[in-house]
């Protein structure tokens, strides 16, 4: 099994979100970038397939050179090699078109990606990739097993789970559950040393027009201050929720 794990390079979840240049550019000042948390769950699942089922694991990012430390981290966690498609990633459809080329030329049969990137929250690249490749696709995956070319999976639905059966080739967009929090791996010294020697191939993008573009960013309107209610005066809370906020 040849597995490709799609890695998006995103601001750490603790980051303060600010913008510069008239609110048109995300301010990376002081921001630490990490592997998108959903992608990290998928990468860990891929490592299990590698260790238990002899799969090979390649990681890929569509981005400029600044994303390479994130790809090196994925190599330190245990991926065999990495690919960077040398292009500023600005739009889901064009990113998916680049990834489709990588999948076709590398002959991957299982593609793992995250449910969404926590920066732009598109939730679109994996589904688009599957459609472009005519691969099977499961979104919001919280568990999977592969046996030969048969795959059983479960995905989250409103208020529960759905078990699914399908076959390779397949694109899976995963989240916590595909492995658990405790299964995530922190790269050790040996992993980090080895990662330096593993191949990180830079490929040039194919022609693909962007279909969307961010014109500007906005921050939510600042909140008014909290109304404190005395713990002995629960009636007042009920009154406010009913008459002022009108939510009960």
């Amino acid at each position, binding site marked *: 099994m040849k597995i490709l794990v799609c890695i998006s390079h995103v601001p750490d979840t603790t980051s303060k979100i600010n913008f510069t240049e008239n609110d048109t550019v995300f301010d990376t000042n002081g921001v630490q970038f990490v592997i998108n948390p959903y992608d990290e769950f998928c990468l860990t699942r891929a490592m299990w397939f590698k260790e238990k089922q002899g799969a090979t694991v390649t990681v890929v990012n569509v981005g400029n050179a600044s994303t390479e430390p994130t790809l090196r981290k994925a190599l330190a966690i245990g991926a065999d090699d990495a690919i960077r498609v040398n292009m500023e990633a600005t739009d*889901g459809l064009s990113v998916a078109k680049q990834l489709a080329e990588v999948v076709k030329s590398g002959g991957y049969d299982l593609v793992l990606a995250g449910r969404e990137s926590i920066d732009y*929250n598109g939730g679109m690249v994996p*589904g688009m990739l599957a459609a472009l490749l005519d691969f099977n696709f499961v979104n919001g995956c919280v568990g999977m097993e592969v046996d030969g070319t048969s795959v059983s999976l479960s995905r989250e639905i409103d208020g529960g789970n759905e*078990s699914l059966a399908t076959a390779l080739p397949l694109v899976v967009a995963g989240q916590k559950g595909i492995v658990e929090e405790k299964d995530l791996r922190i790269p050790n010294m040996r992993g980090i040393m080895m990662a330096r020697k593993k191949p990180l191939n830079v490929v040039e993008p194919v022609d693909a027009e962007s279909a969307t573009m961010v014109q500007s*960013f906005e*921050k939510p309107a600042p909140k008014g201050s909290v*109304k404190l209610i005395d713990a002995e005066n*629960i009636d007042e*809370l009920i009154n406010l929720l009913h008459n002022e906020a009108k939510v009960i």
Partner: protein
Amino acid sequence: MSVLVFADSAEGKFKKSAFEVVSFGKKVAEQLGSHLVVLTINANKNEELYVYGAEKVVAVSNDSLKTFNAKAYASAINQVAAAQSASVVILDSSIDGLFIAPMVAVALNAGYASNVVALPSATNPFTVKRKAFSSKAFSNTVISSDKKVIGVAKNAYGIHENPVSGTTETFDVSISDADLKIKSVKIEKITGQVTIADADIVVSAGRGLKGPENWGMIEELADVLGAATACSKPVSDLGWRPHGEHVGQTGKPVASNLYIAIGISGAIQHLAGINASKVKVVINTDPEAPFFKAADYGIVGDAFEVVPKLIEKLKAFKQA
């Protein structure tokens, strides 16, 4: 040219989001000087949509679409989009909506914007406001492709009545075996409970509750309010509550009318996921807990004293 809205239903009954996307689609069609077409799949009461402005409903009934199948649903939407020369396709941003939309976008070679929170601010260039950075910000996004796919965020635009005298016509779609290569084997649902996605009110608790044995009062409070229950990430990581209840930046987003946080500190990752909720109440022993900065109403107090009292008072209030 038309604006095509997919109004989702389950077991024949429209989901609440269906009324919101139809309300939204009606306005988009007006903005574009186009007309609205609403697609329904195996729905029972199509006329319910006329209230929200659906002048033309295209009703598909097909046994292959009895249970949700994302690729087959996408295929049905694509066939109707082609027949109706749709230039804009609008869906919700629910778990299922997010599953279908990217496949529709590829079939139409369209740009897709998910989690859209307001009507387009301009139609040329076509500009929509969407959530970004896990609700820590919004982005004004231009869709430049000829065709466009939009996923409307839950509870952001709202449901607006706009009664029209509508008509419903039926339409046959053909679903091939290739569309059905993902087989549903089993669906497990916690029945009799309100889901976080559907809920108008969510009652959520964190590590301040000390242990899973103390969730009885949280469930009771949710029950009195007709609310869904949720929790912070450590609570689900510790196995006190199921994963499906974990809300926040890396969990489920919550866009309810009321969010009650009990014994939750209000870490930035937690707040990111619940920002879209309209009214927030916090109950916490620590007046310095960051949640107080994000909340509308707060009680500094011990959950083990406040929650039972709140349940009792709410019961009385509901009876009055």
